[in-house]
């Protein structure tokens, strides 16, 4: 939020090209493959150094799956993921150097920490595994520095997760992700399981850390307010596809895609009286053509036949975008803007 445009270069940190992920769906007494769940469909995305990108969408939109693909927890079905230009191999082996630079903070801090491991040990472990601090005292110093960075007292190193509150656990999870000095931090619903006031503190912490370290964030959330409070660029997802990608200011002030409008109104951020004609279809049986057409007030026969591509349709507002340069706005709709 506070990086000047010159600090953000145009080289990309992370690039996704045509990334898709399908899961086979097994049913029946013999567990035969009955169909495929298209969790992520043909996603292109760019994250620049220092940028905070938000991924917003509702159930089944694929945002969490996308995070797992980037974190290399799951292999992509098709498409490429490049980190700093290098293609990330799809198998198990990811070079430790890259592994260190892409880290993930999970949604539920209670289950993302090993209940039988003390905080200090959990923070020191990544250092041990990557041989980043060779002596025990070096590790100790680092552990205390990490705790300090996330606003926790040093004595917490001796505690177990269940002795901490939800917010404190999330701080530990963030500290652990920072232990390896990553460049890209993936945050999956970072405040969804926390009370609002605790969540606010975590968001503040994330903002502070962003300016302290050279970090990029990919923030995933179903909550537009959370996304809007911290992100520079926002991608809206629906049924596995990105339907709109724009600078935060542009997105909130002048949304293009009908689904974005619906989301904004549902979140109370816009009062346009948008019509909603249905519910999210199941990812097992997505509608033909445009995935949003079953609910879209603009839908016509074209929408049934052709799935609109995500296209750059140029900036629209005279208001300069947050990054200070011309960002093309992308939208996947036949009729918008």
């Amino acid at each position, binding site marked *: *939020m506070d990086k000047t445009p010159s600090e953000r270069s145009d080289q990309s940190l992370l690039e996704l090209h045509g990334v898709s992920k399908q899961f086979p769906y097994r049913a029946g007494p013999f567990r035969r493959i009955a169909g495929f769940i298209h969790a992520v469909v043909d996603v292109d995305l760019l994250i620049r150094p220092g940028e905070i990108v938000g991924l917003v969408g*509702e*159930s089944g939109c694929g945002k969490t799956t996308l995070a797992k693909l980037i974190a290399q927890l799951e292999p992509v079905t098709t498409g490429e993921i490049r980190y700093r230009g290098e293609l990330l191999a799809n198998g198990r082996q990811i070079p430790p150097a890259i592994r260190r630079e892409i880290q993930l903070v999970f949604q539920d801090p209670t289950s993302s920490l090993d209940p039988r491991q003390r905080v200090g040990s959990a923070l020191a472990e990544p250092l041990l595994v990557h041989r980043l601090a060779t002596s025990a005292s070096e590790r100790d110093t680092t552990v205390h520095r990490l705790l300090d960075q996330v606003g926790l007292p040093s004595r917490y190193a001796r505690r177990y997760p269940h002795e901490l509150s939800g917010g404190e656990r999330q701080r530990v999870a963030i500290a652990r992700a920072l232990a390896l000095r990553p460049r890209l931090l993936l945050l999956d619903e970072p*405040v969804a399981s926390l*009370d*609002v*006031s605790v*969540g*606010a503190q975590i*968001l503040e912490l994330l903002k502070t850390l962003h300016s302290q370290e050279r970090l990029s964030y990919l923030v995933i959330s*179903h*909550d*537009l*307010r*959370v996304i*809007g*409070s*911290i992100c520079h660029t926002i991608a809206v997802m629906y049924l596995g596809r990105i339907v709109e990608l724009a600078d*935060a*200011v542009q*997105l*909130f*002030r002048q949304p293009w895609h009908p689904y974005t409008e*619906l*989301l904004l*109104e*549902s*979140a*109370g*951020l816009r009062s346009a009286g948008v019509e*909603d004609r249905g*519910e*999210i279809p*199941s990812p097992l049986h997505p509608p033909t053509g445009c995935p949003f057409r079953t609910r879209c007030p603009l839908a016509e026969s074209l929408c049934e036949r052709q799935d609109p591509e995500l296209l750059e349709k140029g900036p629209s507002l005279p208001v300069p975008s*947050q990054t200070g340069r011309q960002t093309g706005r992308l939208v996947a709709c036949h009729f918008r803007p």
Partner: protein
Amino acid sequence: MLLEIRRLTVEFQTAGEHVRAVDEVSLDIGQGEVVGLVGESGSGKTTLGLAITRLVPEPPARILQGEVQFDGEDLLRVPRHELYQVRGGRIAYVFQEPSTSLNPVMTVGRQLVEMIDLHTTSRKAAARTRAIELLGHVGIPAPEERMTSYPHELSGGMKQRVMIAMAIASRPRLLVADEPTTALDVTLERQIVALLKRLQQELRLSILVISHSIHLVKQLADRIAVMKEGRLVEQGSTGQVLTQPRHEYTQHLLAAQPKVAALEGTL
């Protein structure tokens, strides 16, 4: 005044400790009024909602004191059999997780009919007709076909609509909705809110909406009550509480809502 809660206190005993989940709470709900109860986790709002009809398990809970005046009777002191008639009958509940509130091995139709039978005296055919009518009323398409569906065949939003249908089957005076949309997507929440508003007007229903989401309560409630650690710290009309909060905690709660920088002009 439909419901008058006076100095209700509920205590929990766990492992030698006594905790007051609800501490001397007084709250009124008028006829046809929607009251929103907001608070964070541990505020006692859910316990309060359950305590109204003595749904809190005793033990480990104990209702220490208080009155709940509903239709001229103190619900905390009426005999059990009367309480069973009130619960689900004149005071209905809708909870957060529709997946676990519906019986997975019974069709939707059967569960609805069972509900109708329990609280009204109608013959089987009439109950079935009413069930179909209710499903349509809550916005479920092709209600007659849906009667033979099992819960797992329904989407989350539809299940919640079915729960609402079951709740209004007995034409209750008060609906207690505890986190009714927390498990739902925000666009679905919008639909459920519209449904509740419509039903509230058509049936002249009073609603007690319990939630941690100020956004939800803002859309539905005429009045808001804020709870913190068992105590009611502020009450007032929705507009007033949200724009001119008097209590420090309310101010803190409102300030903690994430602010969309792009809309605030703070870049």
